[in-house]
């Protein structure tokens, strides 16, 4: 049987992906390229934040099973340093231009919807319940980001170039989504976690279909970051995460237990 520590870690991975990406999307508030997109990216962020709260609240309860004082969702969000975060490297990458933001969202959404679909079959009822809720939201996210990849990719010379450059730059962070380490393996074997490696062919065919439509080229595979059990899922992050957390956590760090 996998221990509570492994389940806790896995729940952090699920929760931190949503939390970090939501914070990134929140950085667009008030300066989206058009009003509709400002609202859309914020709404996607809101969904992801809501999902993150569900995962992190559960993580805190699992943590308490070992007799430790389980942390609340707020404590987990505001009082961990970057090395304590378990999100994918992809989601912490900076917003860049809008093509960069859309590329990051698209690569993640296509994976997220597959992962959540599998997690609805988890033997852990709480995980299955959260996933069943979240997958419905993720389907809208992936429709939107896919539409934008096609629109920008098959758009003007400028938008096409930026979209392709964004995909090329982020591609090395996609391998981590399908890398299964010992923590995940133990939970996959007991029917609790989703086997991320099995999602890859489905993800690749969806990405290929969208890129064909968008006249974009799938980058050639080369070095993939974070795949050798030393990436975001193990707490080894790019420098961008700590900068982001410094902003996100500044208020609760400066004013502990502040209420608003």
């Amino acid at each position, binding site marked *: 049987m996998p221990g509570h520590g492994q389940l806790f870690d896995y729940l952090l991975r699920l929760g931190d992906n949503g939390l970090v990406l939501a914070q990134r999307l929140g950085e667009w508030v008030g300066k989206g390229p058009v009003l509709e997109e400002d*609202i*859309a990216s914020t709404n996607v962020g809101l969904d992801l934040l809501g*999902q993150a709260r*569900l995962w992190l609240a559960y993580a805190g309860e699992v943590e308490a099973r070992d007799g430790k004082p389980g942390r609340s969702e707020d404590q987990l969000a505001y009082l961990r340093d970057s090395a304590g975060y378990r999100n994918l490297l992809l989601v912490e990458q900076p917003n860049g231009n809008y093509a960069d933001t859309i590329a990051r969202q698209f690569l993640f959404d296509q994976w997220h919807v*597959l992962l959540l*679909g599998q997690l609805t079959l988890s033997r852990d009822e709480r995980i299955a319940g959260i996933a*069943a809720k979240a997958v*419905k939201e993720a389907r809208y996210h992936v429709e939107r980001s896919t539409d934008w990849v096609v629109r920008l990719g098959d758009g003007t010379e400028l938008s096409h170039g930026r979209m392709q450059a964004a995909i090329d730059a982020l591609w090395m962070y996609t391998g981590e989504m399908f890398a299964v380490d010992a923590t995940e393996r133990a939970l996959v074997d007991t029917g609790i976690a989703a086997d991320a490696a*099995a999602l890859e062919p489905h993800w690749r065919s969806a990405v290929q*279909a969208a890129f064909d439509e968008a006249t974009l080229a799938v980058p050639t595979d080369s070095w993939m970051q974070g795949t050798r059990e030393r990436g975001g899922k193990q707490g080894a992050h790019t420098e961008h995460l700590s900068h982001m957390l410094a902003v996100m956590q500044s208020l609760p760090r400066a004013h502990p237990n502040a209420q608003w």
Partner: protein
Amino acid sequence: MHTPEDELAAVWRAIGGVVDPEIPVVSVVELGIVRGVERVADAWEVTVTPTYSGCPATRVIEDDIRMAIAAVAGERARVVTALAPAWTTDWIAPEGLAKLRAAGIAPPGAAASHDLPVTARAVTFGRPRPAVACPNCGSLRTAELARFGSTVCKAQYRCADCLEPFDYFKPH
């Protein structure tokens, strides 16, 4: 004398007066998010399921339900959240759909057609989307402006005939 059935009916009526703070034309009961009311020891326990994980109205709705019950029953009320089964727009009552339309919000079509099997299936571009009737003039010549509207549960549309922009409550 009040029978327990009378009390339960009064509590349901009270909850029926609580509106969604973001769409104040429909009650939380019409929205289908109140999944049950039960007497547990000395308190009324109301089971609510959220529409979307990140819906900011959830907390307000819980407070409003507690206050509405306190007003009629003068007793303690608890709101518990149930995630499963996940809320679907199919649970919006027919009168709720009519009220949405009257408020200029195109009501959702059946959500079942929007659902994919839970097995690994990727979403690809160009999935056909059903036509949405304009809540203002009924025309089917409408187009989506954005996947997300004034709230996370809605999309923005525009009618090509009466030219009105409107919100579409997405099947979910």
